[in-house]
């Protein structure tokens, strides 16, 4: 960094500055903090984005508590628990990838940890696809015309619960987990070029903002799931009334 400090003193000598330093920043530290701040503002916006869906869930669930518990029983909490563990592990590998760039580990290690994160992301999405397919087979896709639960399910609805209330639970289930899954798919698209940069040896203890900021995004997506899991999957786990 000494060469860079000199460059600043002597009027931004471009030949001495770090190749990753953009001209409108004084130094890499300022650049890093500005990037992290921007990422956090984006995450704050994302919280409002998902917040609307959590609010819709809260209102409908207060209105139809029994229907939501019964409908939640159609989700397999064991599969949900497995996917939660997968996502938490992917958060660990991502945190370790940030650590690997911060401490200047080999590019093989950096790319390997990010590849592990992507792999776990694909496992999560694969399990999600199987779950969605199960709902399709059971006629629980909450789109008009498609929503067609079996006569057996309809006959065993708890007292006072209507098919429409079931449909609302599954609408929220697909909207919330679908938006979450979309964030993961976008995440995989974003990390791909970052892995390429890591392979080219672009990251060092001085410069690793793309890895760090992608990590913030990935952990945020993990936090959303931390709330979706109990609200959607675990809600009906102890529910037995009417069955």
């Amino acid at each position, binding site marked *: 960094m000494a060469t860079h400090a000199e460059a600043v003193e002597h009027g931004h000598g471009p030949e001495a500055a770090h190749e990753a330093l953009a001209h409108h920043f004084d130094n890499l530290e300022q650049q*890093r903090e500005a990037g992290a701040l921007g990422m956090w503002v984006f995450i704050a916006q994302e919280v409002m984005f998902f917040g609307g869906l959590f609010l819709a869930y809260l209102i409908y669930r207060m209105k139809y508590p029994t229907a939501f518990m019964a409908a939640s029983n159609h989700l397999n909490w064991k599969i949900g628990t497995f996917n939660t563990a997968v996502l938490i592990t992917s958060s660990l590998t991502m945190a370790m990838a940030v650590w690997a760039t911060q401490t200047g580990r080999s590019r093989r290690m950096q790319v390997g940890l990010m590849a592990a994160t992507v792999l776990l992301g694909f496992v999560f999405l694969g399990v999600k696809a199987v779950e969605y397919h199960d709902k399709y087979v059971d006629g629980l896709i909450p789109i008009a015309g498609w929503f067609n639960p079996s006569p057996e399910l309809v006959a065993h609805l708890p007292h006072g619960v209507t098919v429409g209330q079931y449909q609302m639970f599954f609408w929220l289930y697909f909207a919330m987990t679908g938006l979450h899954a979309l964030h993961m798919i976008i995440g995989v698209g974003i990390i791909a070029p970052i892995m390429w940069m890591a392979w080219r040896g672009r990251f060092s203890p001085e410069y690793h903002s793309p890895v760090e900021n992608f990590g913030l995004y990935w952990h945020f997506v993990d936090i959303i799931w931390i709330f979706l899991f109990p609200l959607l999957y675990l809600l009906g786990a102890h529910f037995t009334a009417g069955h």
Partner: protein
Amino acid sequence: MSEHIVPRTTYFGVFGALLVLTALTVVAANINFGKMNDVIAMTIAVTKMTLVLLFFMHVRYSSRLIWVIVASMFFWLLILLSLTLTDYTSRDWFGANVGGIMSRQ
């Protein structure tokens, strides 16, 4: 570089805590505590979120400016949830015909 590097042991500790809390919330959900089921599930979820925020997302070691963004994030979410609920929960006060969405079937 004033950037704080979180040691690996901290990450592994947080990871272990998140897995234990996940197991705990699954066990609790399979027991009927009545209304307390929600309280237990959300307490565990908030604890897990806090661990991820502070350590995986480095908030604990971040500048005051980042803390302000994180605090305002929760503040605006609270406005979204609480002000909307003041409407929905008070509609019944004026009789069922006003559109009392909180009235239970």
